[in-house]
């Protein structure tokens, strides 16, 4: 990083003193954040920290090209603030969230409404954007869906079959996770971190553990970092495989759908082989990993991994070979690279628009400092590209596991965690299978958590689903939605 920035720079998975975070009057803070976003930097998180009766804003920016993170904060203020969203769409949901959580109004926000509607009688539905006209009709879907899916509400404005606008209202899954963290960590905290999004247990638990370890000035033993990386890639394999199968199912291509349904379970069982739980519960703890893998267990893992990888290779080959699949995948749910960059898209969805961004590569922490995974990119931005990136990542994760299982570091897997440093801020990013999981932890003078901000990749990406649906046939919604496969609970917290 050689250009000047007023922000404090830090590496992923590290902490700095709260007083070392540069502080500006509100207007300057917003100007600085706006300037960095204008240069094309990414907003990883933007949130409020209450201070007395006033509020501070804190921004965590990702300078991907510089492999560094940047933080800054505003001086405490009361009342409203001019919305960044007016010029920088990346801030859109963050500013709505700040308004909802702290009551500070982002002035001139183009679409200010609740994100989750805490403590209300109902979720965040309310006034929807409406298109008027004689041929226009509105379609409402959810919160309860046709299959076994989490709840969310989708409101379509359609002209015949064509979707002119889709608005997504979430909040149904809100369980008060961030609020409960104040004064923590509590006895239940690590279990809540594992269930922020239950299909992303390893990524969220690793981000949480890394943040706490950074605050404690400790690092997990090397072998624990290695185990976490193994588990993270297994999580990616299971979910990507499931997604390929589900995408195949949505276009009625049953060979791949039924094969991948089973293989996904085989990958989950590999995680269960390590820790007993198919979703990796109990695998990651602050300080390391409580359960090691003995050589016979790892040999069995390696053997079963090969079988599952060979099977998914076969199932994917059918998918790419079928013209009927390609015609349904190609040019469906298209998102331009420019749009993706504007809204701050992350993960496979962003890489499927040709954006080269991957925490494992841009901001390596833990074992990824020593073992890299190439970034898988596809340029087209449609359903095909999102499926294709998943397939590329399945191959890369498979290769990574093959290599890493042979080169395990020796040693302990768990070390006691020292007390958390008081008045310090830590940032931990992990590339979960949906994209960037961001945890920001701030301690108070007593060394307890004062504020904890979680940003699931879905928080960035739901807007992408809405944009991808524009001028699509409404009948393609299931396919488009599945091609993103975002988390409801990870968004709702």
């Amino acid at each position, binding site marked *: 990083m050689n250009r000047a920035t007023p922000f404090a720079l830090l590496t992923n998975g590290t902490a700095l003193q709260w007083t070392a975070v540069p502080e500006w009057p509100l207007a300057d803070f917003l100007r600085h954040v706006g300037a960095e976003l204008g240069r094309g930097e990414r907003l990883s998180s933007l949130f409020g920290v209450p201070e007395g009766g006033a509020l501070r804003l804190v921004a965590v920016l990702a300078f991907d090209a510089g492999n560094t993170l940047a933080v800054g904060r505003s001086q405490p203020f009361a009342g409203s603030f001019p919305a960044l969203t007016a010029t920088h769409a990346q801030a859109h949901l963050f500013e709505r969230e700040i308004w909802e959580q702290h009551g500070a109004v982002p002035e001139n926000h183009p679409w200010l409404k609740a994100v989750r509607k*805490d*403590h*209300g*009688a*109902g*979720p965040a539905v309310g006034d929807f954007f409406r298109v008027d006209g004689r041929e226009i009709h509105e379609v409402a879907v959810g*919160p*309860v869906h*046709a*299959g*076994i*899916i*989490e*709840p969310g509400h989708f409101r379509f404005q359609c002209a015949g079959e064509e979707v002119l606008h889709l608005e997504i209202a979430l*909040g*149904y*899954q*809100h*369980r*008060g*996770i961030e609020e*409960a963290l104040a004064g923590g960590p509590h*006895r*239940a905290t*690590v*279990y*809540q971190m*594992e*269930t*922020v*999004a*239950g*299909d992303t*247990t390893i990524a969220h638990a690793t981000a949480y553990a890394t943040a706490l370890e950074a605050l404690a000035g400790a690092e997990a033993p090397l072998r624990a970092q290695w185990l976490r990386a193994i588990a993270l890639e297994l999580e990616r394999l299971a979910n990507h495989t*499931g997604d390929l199968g589900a995408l195949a199912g949505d276009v009625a291509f049953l*060979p791949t759908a039924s094969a991948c*349904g*089973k293989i*996904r*379970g085989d990958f989950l*069982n590999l995680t*269960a*082989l*390590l820790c*007993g*739980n*198919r*979703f990796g*519960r*109990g695998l990651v703890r602050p300080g390391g990993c409580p*359960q090691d893998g003995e050589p016979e267990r790892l040999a069995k893992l390696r053997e079963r991994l090969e079988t599952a990888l060979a099977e998914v290779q*076969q199932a994917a*080959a*059918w998918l790419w*070979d*079928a013209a009927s699949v390609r015609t349904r995948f190609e040019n469906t749910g298209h998102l331009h690279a420019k749009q993706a960059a504007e809204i701050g898209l992350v993960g496979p969805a962003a890489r499927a628009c040709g954006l080269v961004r991957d925490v494992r590569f841009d901001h390596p922490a833990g074992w990824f400092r020593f073992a890299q995974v190439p970034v898988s990119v596809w340029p087209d931005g449609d359903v095909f590209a999102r499926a294709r990136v998943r397939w590329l990542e399945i191959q890369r994760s498979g290769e990574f596991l093959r290599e890493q299982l042979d080169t395990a570091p020796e040693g302990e897997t768990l070390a006691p965690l020292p007390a958390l440093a008081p008045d310090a801020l830590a940032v931990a990013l992990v590339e979960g299978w949906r994209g960037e999981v961001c945890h920001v932890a701030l301690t108070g003078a007593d060394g307890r958590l004062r504020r904890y901000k979680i940003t699931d990749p879905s928080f960035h990406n739901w807007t992408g689903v809405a944009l991808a649906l524009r001028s699509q046939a409404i009948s393609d919604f299931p396919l488009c939605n599945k091609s993103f496969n975002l*988390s*409801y*609970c990870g968004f*709702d917290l």
Partner: protein
Amino acid sequence: MFVHDTLLNRLKRGCETMAYPAGPAPALPDRHGGALRVEAAKCQAGCAACVAVCPTEAITRPPNQAVALDLGRCIFCAECIKACPAGAITQTGDHRLAVRRRDDLVLGEAGREQLRLAVALDAKLRRLFGRSLKLRQVSAGGCNACEADTNVLGTIGWDLGRFGIQFVASPRHADGLLITGPVSKNMELALRKTYAAVPEPRIVIAVGACAIAGGPFVGHPQVNNGAGALVPVDLFIPGCPPHPLTILDGLLRLLGRLEDAPRRS
């Protein structure tokens, strides 16, 4: 050419659906542990080591009373097992966990060391649902793990369809609900409406620690601490999440289809 490939592949692989319940149940992962057994009689006087480590307050020991572990609140983290100096809490490795009454999940005192496993529906409901049970799934604050491991029962390995059990796209087509999640306040209305839309007679199945008692979110003002607060529950399937085998066992047990198994094999 994929048509040729897939057909050949399918022929080579044969039927991939497990033999269970006609054959033996697949093994749980060795580190899973299965159900818990609690022998309060082994507890040392005045000891409450397990109570202090339980993240969901599933364990209680009022003064001069026996320890009680509520497997409905339990998320199977095994911290209590590590903490117990007397070995009063043990893992049985048993995948069978489903019960019919909430109270049957409370373990500890003499005669109640283990779960009282679910009995089948009465004869009338069995006649109605025994060979065809259509369920509407409502995720109400679930983290997508219980949902995923319910969904997996539809894959070729488990093939839930062979039991006539199916998840349907409308409550009007359903015989009951399968609920996951602690029932967030924001899903309360949707759950009530969905339940009301299911024609009677109807059954309710609560899958996972959240749906039974709130799971890791128990006590949060944003949740209802389980489905039981809103609708009558007929079957409780503990776990965080329950293993697919545990869910399947619960469903078959409810329909009285497990006693038949030995005869067919």
